[in-house]
């Protein structure tokens, strides 16, 4: 994972991942470019999943500890 990637926030990373997926689905894609994109895409996917899981865990904890759940 590049430094540039970890600096991305979740929605930007997700948007980039979406862009990559679309590019990769172009049948005319070049092999070298495709490989680079695939590598970037897979690591972005990993980054996004980690960020989302982390946020989900955090929020579930907050909601559980909060008085909101008491009602």
């Amino acid at each position, binding site marked *: 994972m590049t430094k540039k990637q970890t600096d991305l926030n979740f929605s930007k990373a*997700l948007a980039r991942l979406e862009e990559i997926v679309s590019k990769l*689905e*172009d049948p005319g894609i070049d092999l070298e470019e*495709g490989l680079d994109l695939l590598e970037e895409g897979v690591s972005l*996917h990993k980054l996004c999943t980690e960020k*989302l899981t982390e*946020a*989900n865990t955090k929020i579930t904890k907050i909601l559980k500890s909060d008085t909101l759940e008491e009602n």
Partner: protein
Amino acid sequence: MKIVGGKKVYTVSEVNYIAKQTLEQMPFWVEGEVSEFRKHPKLNFFYLRIKDERAVLPCVADGRLLAGIGNNLVGQKVLVSGSLTLYEPLAIYQLRIETFELAGEGVLSKKLEEIIKKLKEEGLFDQKFKKDLPQFPKKVCLVTSDGSDAANDFITHSINKFPVIELYIADVRVQGASAIGQLLKVLPTVDRMGFDVIVITRGGGSLEDLAAFNDEYVARAIFKLVTPTVVAIGHEANESVAEWVADKRASTPTDAANIVTAGYAKVEENLVYLKNRLLSQTNYYFSNNFQKLDHYYFRLAQVKGSFKDLPHRLNSTKSLLEKHEKLLIDDGKSRCSQMLKDLVKNFMLIKEEKTRRLDQAKRSFAILSPENTLLRGYSITYSSTGSILRNIEDIELNSTVKVKLHDGSFKSKVESKQTND
């Protein structure tokens, strides 16, 4: 009456007569509820029955006593005075009514109507005097009988739900003789204490029980309050003058509490709504994004497909190349052999041409050879040294030169020479 065996023995008529004499000396004031009411078919005379919880008393009344009171008095409380009379043939007694007036709520209702009319004319019920209640009252004064159901209902639905409210209870009697006096004293006092809202309440009851809240002076005192006021007297069905002059009317103590705390309730409701939205939006956000990621991963995994025909393309390119190569080689070969043929052919042509030209040259050369020239009569002159003489100036006078003809030579002496012009 006769004496039989030492005993006084009366006839039935005598008993009834004695009873009548005794009874008719007893005048009464009687209060009761009319349970039956009918007019004599012909005479202006009325038969009534008035009752209480346990007994019934038949009455008769002159029609003139009842003038203007109305025809249907059943259920009406009345206060009558009269004396008992006894109908001797049947030993039935009844009350002969001498004065007749409506009692209890009947009277109160009439008085109430008058007060309402008066206050209404003065404008005390006008909407323009109604003050708005604060949305979030902090200090609330409850004017009621402390410990009553009404007080407890109000507490349950106000500070128990929203403890942010500070409640002060001004304990007053809410019925009976002292109620009006206490209210008139307490109301102006609490009005000066800086409350956000004053709530005046009591539970339901009869018109008599509610009398203090239909009192004209109490109504005026409530009207004068500077503090916004909610009044809830009795049950849903009861209405009182106090409610009419209040800034806000409530049907019950609980309703009053709901009105006072409406602002808080709305905030609470909104908070619950927002909480639910927060939870559902959070859920949606995560499930949506997890799904997206799954989907993208699936699509990433499909990328292999984009390159799956590459080997095939490579293969076909290779065979294409091979084919081209073969074609190229064949073509090259045939072109080479053609060239070779052409070359040979061209060489032959060139050779023929050269041969022809050589012959031509030979022939020309033969024509131009010195032998041929000598044959045609020309001669060649050599100097004494043997060199061919071409110019007149090379010839010396008196020298001997050699002249060659085609079939021999001779020597000659130069006697003179002349240069051409």
